[in-house]
């Protein structure tokens, strides 16, 4: 029982190690919490489609420049 209490206390300390984020305006804080909740667990579910969409969009806008950028980036390691 003591060990469960200890673990519980430890977990609570961990969870409350930082204060909640308050952005000043109620509805903005709510939106912020909603958006960040998607990024806290399995962010790649949202990140991968977002990255693919952005790169397709960049290709449509910049065309060949994107191919040249990749060449530069490939030399960038």
């Amino acid at each position, binding site marked *: 029982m003591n060990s469960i209490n200890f673990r519980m206390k430890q977990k609570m300390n*961990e*969870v409350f*190690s*930082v*204060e909640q*984020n*308050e*952005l000043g305006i109620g509805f903005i804080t709510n939106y*912020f919490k909603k958006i960040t909740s998607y*990024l*806290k*667990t*399995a*962010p*790649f579910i949202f*990140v*991968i489609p*977002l*990255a*693919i969409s*952005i*790169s*397709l969009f*960049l*290709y449509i806008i910049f065309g*060949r420049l*994107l*191919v*040249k*950028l*990749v*060449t530069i*980036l*490939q*030399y*960038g*390691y």
Partner: protein
Amino acid sequence: MATDLITSFVLIVRYLILLIFSPYKTMRKISMEKDYYQPAIIIGIIFIYFKFIYYLRDKLYPATLVYILFIINFLLTVAFFYLLSKLFAKNKKEIRFSSFIFTFVYSLFPTLIWFLSTSILYIFLPPPRTFSLMGKGFSIFFIAYSLSLLIWKFILVYLAVRFSSKQNFFRIIFMIIFYLIWFIPYSIFLYQLKLFRIPFI
């Protein structure tokens, strides 16, 4: 010692997988870590990476020199965020330098993965990219892949600062902008010296 190292290595792999699936909870746990073998092993893996790319690059500078410069960059970054957090913090005692070290070392994983994969791709698919269908397709894939890792990196850096400095969103964004103000010209300077093309941070 050997058992400790193996245990730490297993923990690193576990944390790495968890950073992909639940970065928030994992970074919070990492910020409370006290096992110094973990950052030492990660920094060691990065040293192996620098030795590996030495054979691919123009060999202008020895790998150890570039690696020492990376360590200096890393320490400058950590010290910058630590000192700024100390300045902002109400309770200065809860700000620990070790917490910054642990979280920032783990936030190097997206960088390491990108640099390692790009250098391996350099061997199998050397640039320049062509304007053929395959070249364009690969370019779109490579940008998407790089962007995903960049977003992951940004999430990890934000969480690293959040759990180490215990500051709110606006202050963290302010700290990151303040950091970029000196780090971007510094990176250009390193680029001109041909030490880093893209800063390893």
